[in-house]
C-alpha cells in the first residue's frame, strides 16, 4: 500500500506540472485524477478531450446504438420514452421535448439575489455553490459522458469544455440535491447553460472582472451556439454524481493537506514542550504494525530531524518520564485517520472515472441497462470518513494547544505564552478559547449526515445517498480545522520563540550566575563551588515553576528559594557562621538583580534577532520561518503590541490585532501556501 504522504506527493507533483502554462488536463473518461480536478476547479487550468477523434468515434457508436434501439421502438427506456423516477409509468414519443422537460422541473432551486435584484446582484453568495465546485462539476460530467455509456453527442461535451475554458460557470443553488438519482437539480443548471436558457444565470469573466448574465447572453457573447437536446441527452446531463464527486474531490484534497500539516504541527508542539522523539521510535510501530501509525511516526521523525529541542529520553530524566498523550500518542491517533483518508481517496478516484447515469448504453450487447449508478453512496462513505478524520485531527491539536497555554502543563512556558508580564498581558488566552470554540463546532459536524435519509420522490427514492450534503459539511469541517491549524501555528511559533528565549537565557544565566557564585562564596570554605551544579539545578527548577509571576517577582522568588536552599545545605553540615549568612544575603540580593537584568537583556536581544531557528528540526524550522518571514507574522511581545497602545519599538507592521495575524496564517492554510515550506523537505517515501 502507498503511504498517505507518498500518495499526496504524487498529487502535488501533478499540480506543479499543471501550473505550468499551457498545460491542459486531458479527458478520456478513464484517467481523471484528484489533482487534475483541483487544478481545473481552482486555477484556470484548461481542459480538453484526449485523442478527440477516437473518443468522438466512441460517442458516435453509442449514439448509433441508442438511435437504433429507439427506431425499432420495441422497448421502453426509463427517461428516454417514459417519464422519470416514480413517474416512469408514463410513455411518450416526444423524446426531444421530454429532455427539456426534465430540465424544467429540476430548475427549481432558490437563488434570492437573482430573483429580487436580477443578475447584477449575484456575487459568490451563500445560496449558490462555489464556482470551484461548479467548475469541477463541469469537468467531471464531461469526463463521465465521454465514457460512451450515456448516449450524448460530442457537441454537448465540447460546449461544456468551451464554456469551462472561457470561465463561464452557471450559478447553481446550494441546496436541493439528495444525490440519489444523482445531483439532478444542480446539474439541471448545467443543462440550462447548454440549452442557452434565458432564466439561468452564469458567472463570466470580462477583462478580469466577474459578472453575472443569463446563460443565453453568455453563450451569445462567447459565440457559442446553444444546443437543443436529443433523446436521453437531458437525462445524461442531470442524472449523475458529478456535483457530489467534484465537491468531495476538493474537500478530500484539502483534508489530505491538513492531515500532513497536523503532523508537522505535532512535531512543532513536541519541540515547544521539549518532548521526546522516542515517542515515534520505529520499534513501537513494529510492535503494532498499523500502516497509518507507522507512517505518522516516520513523518514526525523526519520533521524533527536535527532538532535540539526534541531529543531522546534521558534515562535519568526528572519529572514525567514520558510526554502526555497529545504528543506521545500522535501516531496511534492520527494513523487510522490516514488509513481512512486513503480509503476515501480510492472511492472518490473511482467515482471520477465512472458512468453514473441511467439507463446505460451497452454497445456490445446492443441494449440498455437500467441500474442505479447515480446512487452516490460511495461518495457519502468517503465524506463521512473524511469528516470523522478531521474531528480526530482537530482534537489532538486542541489537546496540544491547551497544554501550551497552561503553565502547569507547558514545562515552564509563561501563562498564555506572554512575553512580557503575565499580570498585564494575556497574549493567546483568547486564541485558546477560540480553539475550543472551533473544535466544538467541528465535533458537532462529526454527526453523521447519512443517518438522516428520508424517503423521497413518491417513495421511489426510499434510499438516497445525501452525498452532496455530506461533502458540503465536510467542507465546513475543512474550514474549521484550517482555522484551528492557523491558530495553533500562531501559538506554536510564539511558544517556540519563548522556549528559545528561555534556553538562551538559561545558557547566559548559568555562566553569569556561576561567576557571581564564585565571587561571593569562593572565599568561604563552608560552601565550595563544586556544589554549583546542584545550586544551579535548584535555581532552574524554581525558575520553571514560577512562570506565572511577573519578572521582578519571579527573580525575587527564585533568589529567595536559592537563599533558603543554601542555608539549608549549610546547616546540614555545621552551624553557619555570620559571614556565611551575610554572603548568602548578598547572594539573594545580587542573584535577583542579575537574573532580572539578564532576562531583560536576553529578551531585548531576542526581539532583534531570534535564535529560534537554530533549535528546530528541518521541517519545523522551515515552517516557522515561513510564518515569521514569508507571512511576516511577528513574535508577540506583549501588551505593547496592541494597536492602540503607544510606545514600544513596534513598527506599524507588528501592531495588529492577534486575529489579523492569525488570519494571515489562515489564508496561507486555505490557499495551500503553508504547504510550500513543507513539501520539498518531507523525505521521499
Amino acid at each position: 500500500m502507498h503511504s498517505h504522504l507518498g500518495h499526496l506527493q504524487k498529487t502535488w507533483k501533478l499540480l506543479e506540472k499543471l501550473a505550468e502554462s499551457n498545460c491542459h488536463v486531458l479527458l478520456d473518461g478513464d484517467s481523471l485524477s484528484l489533482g487534475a480536478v483541483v487544478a481545473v476547479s481552482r486555477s484556470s487550468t484548461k481542459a480538453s478531450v484526449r485523442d478527440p477523434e477516437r473518443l468522438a468515434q466512441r460517442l458516435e457508436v453509442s449514439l448509433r446504438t441508442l438511435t437504433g434501439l429507439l427506431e425499432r421502438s420495441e422497448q421502453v427506456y426509463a427517461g428516454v420514452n417514459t417519464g422519470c423516477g416514480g413517474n416512469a409509468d408514463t410513455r411518450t414519443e416526444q423524446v426531444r421535448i421530454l429532455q427539456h422537460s426534465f430540465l424544467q422541473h429540476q430548475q427549481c432551486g432558490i437563488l434570492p439575489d437573482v430573483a429580487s435584484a436580477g443578475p447584477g446582484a449575484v456575487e459568490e453568495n451563500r445560496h449558490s455553490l462555489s464556482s470551484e465546485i461548479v467548475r469541477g462539476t463541469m469537468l467531471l460530467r464531461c469526463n463521465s459522458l465521454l465514457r460512451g455509456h450515456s448516449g450524448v453527442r460530442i457537441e454537448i461535451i465540447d460546449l461544456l469544455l468551451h464554456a469551462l475554458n472561457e470561465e463561464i460557470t452557471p450559478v447553481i443553488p446550494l441546496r436541493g440535491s439528495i444525490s440519489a438519482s444523482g445531483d439532478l437539480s444542480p446539474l439541471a443548471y448545467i443543462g440550462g447553460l447548454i440549452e442557452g436558457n434565458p432564466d439561468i444565470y452564469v458567472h463570466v469573466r470580462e477583462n478580469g472582472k466577474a459578472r453575472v448574465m443569463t446563460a443565453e447572453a453568455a453563450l451569445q457573447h462567447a459565440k457559442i451556439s446553444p444546443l437543443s437536446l436529443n433523446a436521453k441527452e437531458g437525462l445524461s446531463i442531470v442524472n449523475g454524481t458529478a456535483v457530489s464527486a467534484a465537491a468531495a474531490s476538493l474537500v478530500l484534497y484539502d483534508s489530505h493537506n491538513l492531515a500532513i500539516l497536523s503532523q508537522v504541527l505535532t512535531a512543532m508542539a513536541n519541540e515547544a514542550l521539549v518532548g521526546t522523539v522516542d515517542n515515534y521510535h520505529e520499534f513501537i510501530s513494529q510492535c503494532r504494525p498499523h500502516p497509518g501509525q507507522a507512517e505518522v511516526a516516520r513523518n514526525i521523525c523526519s520533521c524533527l530531524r536535527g532538532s535540539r529541542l526534541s531529543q531522546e529520553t534521558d534515562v535519568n530524566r526528572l519529572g514525567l518520564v514520558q510526554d502526555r498523550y497529545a504528543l506521545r500518542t500522535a501516531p496511534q491517533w492520527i494513523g487510522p485517520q490516514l488509513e481512512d483518508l486513503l480509503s476515501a481517496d480510492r472511492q472518490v478516484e473511482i467515482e471520477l472515472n465512472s458512468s453514473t447515469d441511467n439507463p446505460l448504453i451497452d454497445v456490445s450487447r446492443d441494449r440498455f441497462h437500467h441500474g442505479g449508478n447515480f446512487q452516490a453512496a460511495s461518495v457519502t462513505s468517503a465524506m463521512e470518513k473524511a469528516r470523522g478524520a478531521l474531528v480526530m485531527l482537530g482534537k489532538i491539536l486542541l489537546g496540544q494547544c491547551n497544554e501550551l497555554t497552561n503553565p502547569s502543563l507547558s514545562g515552564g512556558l509563561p501563562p498564555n505564552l506572554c512575553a512580557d508580564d503575565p499580570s498585564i498581558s494575556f497574549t493567546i488566552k483568547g486564541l485558546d478559547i477560540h480553539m475550543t470554540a472551533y473544535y466544538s463546532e467541528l465535533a458537532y459536524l462529526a454527526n453523521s449526515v447519512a443517518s438522516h435519509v428520508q424517503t423521497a420522490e413518491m417513495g421511489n427514492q426510499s434510499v438516497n445517498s445525501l452525498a452532496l450534503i455530506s461533502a458540503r459539511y465536510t467542507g465546513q469541517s475543512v474550514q474549521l480545522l484550517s482555522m484551528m491549524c492557523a491558530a495553533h501555528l500562531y501559538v506554536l511559533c510564539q511558544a517556540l520563540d519563548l522556549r528559545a528565549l528561555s534556553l538562551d537565557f538559561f545558557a547566559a544565566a548559568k555562566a553569569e550566575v556561576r561567576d557571581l557564585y564564585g565571587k561571593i562564596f569562593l572565599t568561604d570554605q563552608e560552601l565550595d563551588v563544586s556544589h554549583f551544579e546542584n545550586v544551579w539545578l535548584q535555581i532552574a527548577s524554581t525558575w520553571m515553576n514560577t512562570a506565572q509571576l511577573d519578572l521582578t517577582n519571579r527573580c525575587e522568588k527564585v533568589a529567595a528559594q536559592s537563599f533558603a536552599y543554601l542555608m539549608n545545605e549549610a546547616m546540614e553540615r555545621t552551624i553557619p557562621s555570620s559571614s556565611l549568612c551575610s554572603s548568602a544575603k548578598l547572594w539573594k540580593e545580587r542573584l535577583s538583580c542579575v537574573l532580572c537584568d539578564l532576562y531583560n537583556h536576553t529578551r531585548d536581544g531576542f526581539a532583534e534577532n531570534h535564535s529560534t531557528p537554530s533549535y528546530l528540526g528541518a521541517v519545523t524550522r522551515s515552517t516557522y520561518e515561513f510564518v515569521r518571514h514569508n507571512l511576516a507574522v511577528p513574535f508577540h511581545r506583549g501588551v505593547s503590541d496592541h494597536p492602540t497602545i503607544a510606545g514600544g519599538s513596534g513598527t506599524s507592521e507588528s501592531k495588529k490585532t492577534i486575529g489579523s495575524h492569525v488570519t494571515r496564517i489562515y489564508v496561507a492554510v486555505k490557499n495551500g501556501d503553508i504547504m510550500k515550506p513543507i513539501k520539498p523537505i518531507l523525505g521521499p517515501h
Partner: protein
Amino acid sequence: MPHLPSPNSHLAATSRAWARLQDLKANPSLALDGKNLDIAAVVAVAYHGCVPHLSSDPEVIETITASVRVLMDHLDQGYSIYGVNTGFGDSADARTDQATPLQAALLQHTQAGILVASDKDQHQTPAMMGPHSMPSAWVRASIAVRANANARGHSAVTIPMLDGLLQLLAHRITPVVPLRGSVSASGDLMPMSYIAGAIEGSPDIYVRVGDGPNRRIMPARDALLAANIPRRTMGPKEGLGLLNGTAVSTAVASLALHEAHLLAVTAQALTAIGVEALTGTAESFHPFIHATRPHPGQIESAANILTLLQGSHLAADIHPADPKPRTRPGLIQDRYAWRSAPQWLGPQLEDLTLADKQLHTELNSSTDNPLISTTSAQIYTGANFQAASVTSSMEKTRLALQMIGRLIFAQATELIDPSYNNGLPTNLIFDDVSLSFTMKGVDTSLAAYMAELAWTAHPISAHVQAAEMHNQAVNSLALISARCTMQAVELVSLMSAAYLYVACQAVDLRALHVAVLKQVRHRVAEMTQELFGTSLNSHLLQTVVDAVATAWPTTTRLPIAERCRQAVQAAVPVLVNAATTTTAELRLVDVSGWQQRATSIVSEVYHTTAARFLEHPDTADLLGAGSKTLYTTIREDLQVPFHRGFIEHPTAQSETLAANHRPKKTIGSWISVIYEALRRGDVQGAVLTRLRELELERGRSDY
C-alpha cells in the same frame, strides 16, 4: 455470468472466517503465539467454549522470558522505567524502589468501577438496576486477546502470570467486570484491572464460575482456591503489562465486527428475496452497469445478489446474456431500495473490509507501554495503548450498519405497503383485510428500530474529554464505540429478523398470487370462449383476460369477495369495447351473465388455490438459490409458519390450526425465533454455505 468473487472480496473473507469458526467449534482449542490470532478465534473463545493456551513454540517462550530478563537488567542498572519504578500517568514524576507493591497500587486505583449487588451475588435479583457488568463472553474474549498480546514478548509478563491468566478460561472462571469506565487511551485499564484482580485472588473481586443455570458468583479468592489455582503476585511491570492495552476494546470490537460481516452478507440475500417478492428485475445487478462504475464493493455486491437470484422464476432478466424482456408494464425499473442496492451496500463492504484489516492488526499487536525490545535490550516509551485504530474501525462499522439498516427498512416497508409492493395484499394479509392487520405492527416496529439505529450512527469520537489531570488530552473511547456498535448489531439483527418474517410472507403471497392469476386467466378465457364462441377472436379474448388480470393486483386493499367483483368489473368496458369491434351483436344480458360467471370463477379459483396453497405451498420451487435457502431455513428448519391471518392469534379459536398440531404464537414470538437464529449465525451460515456451493458449481461450469 456474474464474476466469481475474488479472494479479497468481502464475501470470500467472511466465508473463510465462517469456515474457520466452524473448525474451531469442532476442535475447540487454540494456541496463542502473538502473531496469528483472528476474529473467528476470538468469537470461538467468547461464545463457543474454545479454550486458548500459550503456544509451546520455544521461540515464543524464549522471547517472553528474555523480555523479563531485559527488564530486570534495567532495574539493576537503576534506570527510570515508566510504571516500574515511577508513578503512573501524570503522576509519573514520582519515583519508587518498591517495584512489586507498585503493581498492586496500580490495580488498587484502577479497580474503581461500579457494580451492583446482583453483579456480585446470583441470589440477588436486580430490582431497579439491571446488570452493570460486562457479558462473560466479552470478558473471555478480552482475556484471550490480552494473552496473545503479552505472548509477543514485548511486555515482560512472566510465563506463570500468563498461565494464571489463561487458567481462568480453562476453569470457566470469568471475572465480573464493570461495563463502564474505560476511555481506552492508556488502554482499557479499568476492565483489565478486574481480570488482573482475579489472578491475584482478590477477595473483593468477583468471578462467575461455570456457565448457564449452574453458574455461581463468588469472590476470586474462593474460586481460585476451589480450582486449586495459586494466587499470583504481580512482579515488576506485570500489572502494567496486563492492564495497559487495548484488549477489551479489541475483543468487543471483534465480536461486533464478526456479526456485522454476517449481517452485510445477509443484507444482500434479503435484497434478492425482496426483488423476487416484488417480481422485480435482476437487470439492476447486471455486471455491465457495475463495470461502468468500478467500485470494488459495488461490483461484488451486484455479483453476489445476481448469484443469489440464480434459478428464480419470479425475478425478471436473470440471465445477463438473455435478450432484454420486450415490454414491461408499469414502472420501467425498480425503485431505489432494490435497484441501487449494490451502489448502497458496496461502500459499506469496503468500509467493513478496512475495519477488518485494522482489527486484525490490532489483535496481533503489542499494546502496552513501555515496550521491551529483546533484540536491542532497550525499553521504549510509547503509546500503543491508544486504541484509535479500534475506534476508527468501530465508527466505520457502525455507520455501515446504519446504511445497511436503512436499506432493509426501505425494502421491508415497500413490501408491506400496497402502493409499492406490486400487487401483494395490504399489510401482507392472507385472510380478511377488514379484520386482520398481519404486518402492520412489524411495519411500525421497524420504524422504531430504524430511528434508534440512526441515532447510534453518530460518532463517539467527537466526544473525547481531557482525562487524568490532562495527561490524556486525547483518548480513543474505543470500548464505548465498540459497545455502541454492538447495539447497532443488535438493532440491525432485529430489523433483519423482522424483514425475513415479512419477506417469507411476501414470497408466499406472491406464489399464491402467481398461481391464482394463472388459473384465473385460464378459467376466464375458457368461460368467455364458451359464452361468446368465435365472435371474439383470440386477440380480443386476450385483452379481456388481461383486463381482469391487470385489475386483480390493484384491488388488494379490499376483502376477497369485493376484490373478485371489482377485478371482473374492470374488464367489462374492455369486453363491451371488444364486442363493438366485432360483427357480433352483444346483448346486455350476455355482459351481465359474463360478469356474474367471471366473478364466481375468480372467487372459486382464489379459494381453491388458496386452500391448495396452504396444504402444499410451492413457493420454494419458484425462488432463486439464495431466497430458497432463506425460505427453507425459516419455514422448515426454524418452523416459522406462513401467517394465515387472525386465526394465528394465540387466543383466537381455530380448528384448522389446532388440527395441524402446530403452535400458535404472537407475531413477535415468531420473529424472535428468527432473531435468535440470526444472532447464532444459523441463517447467515446457511446463506454462506449455499453461496459457496454456487461458486464451486459455477467455477466448474466456467471452464
